[in-house]
């Protein structure tokens, strides 16, 4: 059975704009992908420990030592807008 996917909602969460045609196209494709992945639900995982990472690695650390940061010039190099050494964005107001 095919699942109905709310592509508009997902596109909105991802901040991408899609045309009506794209929405219809992706809707079908995503539903196919989900149905395919759902086959996994049938697999017997009683003896399988949960896997959250495909690599057979664990406990990768770095020591707590300070390394050189980028220069402020480099940090701000791609900023569309800046003021002194800060990034400038449209005003964010949190109160109603």
């Amino acid at each position, binding site marked *: 059975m095919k699942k109905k996917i709310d592509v508009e909602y997902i596109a909105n969460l991802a901040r991408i704009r899609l045309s009506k045609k794209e929405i219809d196209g992706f809707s079908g494709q995503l539903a196919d992908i989900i149905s395919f992945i759902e086959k996994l639900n049938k697999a017997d995982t009683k003896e399988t420990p949960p896997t959250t990472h495909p690599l057979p690695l664990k406990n*990768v650390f770095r020591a707590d*030592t300070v390394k050189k940061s980028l220069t402020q010039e480099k940090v701000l190099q791609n900023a569309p807008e800046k003021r002194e050494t800060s990034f*400038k964005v449209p005003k964010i107001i949190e109160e109603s």
Partner: protein
Amino acid sequence: MTPAGKYETTIGLEVHVQLATQSKIFCGCSTRFGSSPNSQACPVCLGFPGALPVMNKEALGFAIKVGVALGCEIAGRMKFDRKHYYYPDLPKNFQISQYDLPLAAEGSLELFGDGQRRVIRIKRVHLEEDAGKLIHAEKGDASLVDFNRSGMPLLEVVSEPDITSPEEAYEYLTEVKSILRYLDVSDCNMEEGSLRCDANISIRKTGAKSLGVKTELKNMNTFRGVKIALQYEIDRQKAVLEEGGKIIQETRLWNEAKARTFLMRTKEEAFDYRYFPEPDLVPFLIDRETVESIKASLPELPQKRYERFVENYKLQPALASIIVNERDLADFFEESAKGYPRNVQLIANWITGDIQGELNKRKLSMASLGLKPEAFADMLKLIDEGVITGKIAKGLLVDMIETGSMPRELVKSLGLSQITDKGALEAVMEKVIKNNPKPVEDYKNGKTNVITFLVGQVMRETKGKANPKIINEMLRERMGKL
């Protein structure tokens, strides 16, 4: 009118604390506070594509310490997840946090401040990275972003909704801060943002089975602010219910200047963080030995120390709880008690009185005040030995703090010794009697309480170097003969 106690309050707190590591949680940028904006940022904490985070081992060690101190179960296996949302302070558009496998869970914290013990359960403790800092320009239509804070190691401590009043919330925060400082894992400076707090709060009719609808409070910048904001929110919710209205689950921002909460403008869609495992960080296995060795290395924590202070030193619970709250204050007390064991209650009084006053005045911690416990104990001995008066001691304490000198040297160099020469005292007394005929007359006419005034005059003449008790006796004797 609503009778008091008609409603009961349920509060849960989320505390975010910045861990005092040298470098950020997933990169080597410095965590120093107050640097020029964007001078401590790199491809990892700026969220550049392809940059890879690597876990700071010290941050995990600090976090385990806190988990153990809060009596939590430390997870044998933990992982990080991506929490997605869009905001200008978060350039990757996701925050690395922990979702379903947090570092620690199911702990508890015991409050003991007013001598009444209450247990607040801890739901979970998890690690995450901080976001950048937004500065809202006073003028114009711009906000400025500083990514120095982006990637700072944060520990989130979430309580169960076991807190029943704003006062208790304040006490809980004080206790959490105290523990973190004992562990030396954070400086907990709210002004610098190294400790932040959000609250969930609801009210319900006393005895009602299910909880009321809760609101989330944010933007409380001081412990006192938390207390006031919670009380404001309780009153607001009561007013809504009393008018027959309904509480709506929403996030409200505390505005300290206006002393009220405001509805935070919510986006159209509900929060949908789309958590999924962080593929750039592999899982972490924490073995029992590591946890046990950290447990064994913990210092004596405030609650245990409080019990010991009340039990062994027989301190008043109220004073004991103030002193144990700050580790260096409690250390100072114990060191002083070694040098002056005959009256530890007096030590406690000085610490919570004059010494605390000097700390507040100078905005310093005990450790940075430069007052040595041996010097302080010696000062108390000087009072007992009759070398100085209690009044002179108050000034001497300030001199000791300012010069770092031992009290006996200062008494000598400043000439602070108590005047014990009876002849000298009598001369001063005669002068005072001569210059104050009216009070002396009043005394003779039975208004004996003017003696206090006359003693004060003698103290003034001697710059506090006379013993008021002796002066009192001498004056009574002298005036009895007039």
